[in-house]
């Protein structure tokens, strides 16, 4: 059941208060989604406003075929897509350099909180991905949407989403090298109760054929 259903129904019937509540609920995730999709663009705040204005115009026609969140994310992806197209055109004419995550320009962390530096590094890495892959990896790995939800949002078969996501992670790995999150290895992860596995692979228990993990020992 869509947790936003009541407010969405009221907003669709013309309630501004109900829509304002949806804005309060989603301003933060949408802001983070837009930042991730644009590579931490300075225009993120304006784009978020555009997302909610578009949603406000369209909410009367929202039929509830998907969760409100998925619908709103679809709008955000479209807004960002248009913005990126314009930015590419503008940069092409002005000769400006587009965001280049692979350039290795890491902000000086001395004066910044570690979390900010970390987020910026991730945003820069994401910006280096082709937009088609970036959208998928942001929706799945940053925002935790399910494959089926993502497939609906991007209007692609689930198998396509899975294989593109795989490629996206492959491309991101070298750019995230200094940020990888290690955790104590899980000893075997075969699900005990149901017929599906846990979300971690058992190979973590003895990484890569029993040899020391090439990415360094876990410090936990």
């Amino acid at each position: 059941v869509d947790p936003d259903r009541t407010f969405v129904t009221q907003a669709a019937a013309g309630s501004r208060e109900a829509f304002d509540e949806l804005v309060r609920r989603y301003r933060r995730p949408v802001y983070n989604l837009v930042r991730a999709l644009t590579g931490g663009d300075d225009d993120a705040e304006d784009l978020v406003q555009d997302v909610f204005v578009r949603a406000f115009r369209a909410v009367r026609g929202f039929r509830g075929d998907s969760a409100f969140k998925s619908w709103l994310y679809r709008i955000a992806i479209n807004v960002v897509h248009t913005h990126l197209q314009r930015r590419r055109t503008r940069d092409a004419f002005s000769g400006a350099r587009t965001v280049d995550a692979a350039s290795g320009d890491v902000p000086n962390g001395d004066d910044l909180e570690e979390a900010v530096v970390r987020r910026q590094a991730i945003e820069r890495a994401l910006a280096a991905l082709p937009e088609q892959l970036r959208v998928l990896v942001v929706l799945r790995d940053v925002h935790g949407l399910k494959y089926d939800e993502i497939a609906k949002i991007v209007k692609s078969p689930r198998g396509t989403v899975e294989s593109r996501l795989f490629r996206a992670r492959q491309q991101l790995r070298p750019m995230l090298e200094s940020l990888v999150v290690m955790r104590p290895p899980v000893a075997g992860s075969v699900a005990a109760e149901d017929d599906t596995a846990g979300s971690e692979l058992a190979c973590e228990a003895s990484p890569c054929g029993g040899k020391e993990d090439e990415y360094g020992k876990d410090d936990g």
Partner: protein
Amino acid sequence: VTCSDAVRLIGSAIEGGVSRRPLRALTTHLEQCQSCCAEAMTQILVKRTLAATPDARPPDTLVEKIARRLDVETASAKPADRRGRPPQKKTAARLV
């Protein structure tokens, strides 16, 4: 399980979408194949790293700015007529 089978399964396995038997076969393969294991580690570590992306706090003024834009939208929306039909555009052709 061949290397191509393993690559095909890794993505689903880290999402918990592989049933017990093929998962065991995959695990056995990964214990013996360094390149597939490295691939699995890549998928797991990137997924985990991105999941730990610190949240950015939107500017405090954002809600207010959105509200102002919505006020403009509400004010500029023309009311439907008494039968509930949406307002129609007055095109130049209809004005002639």
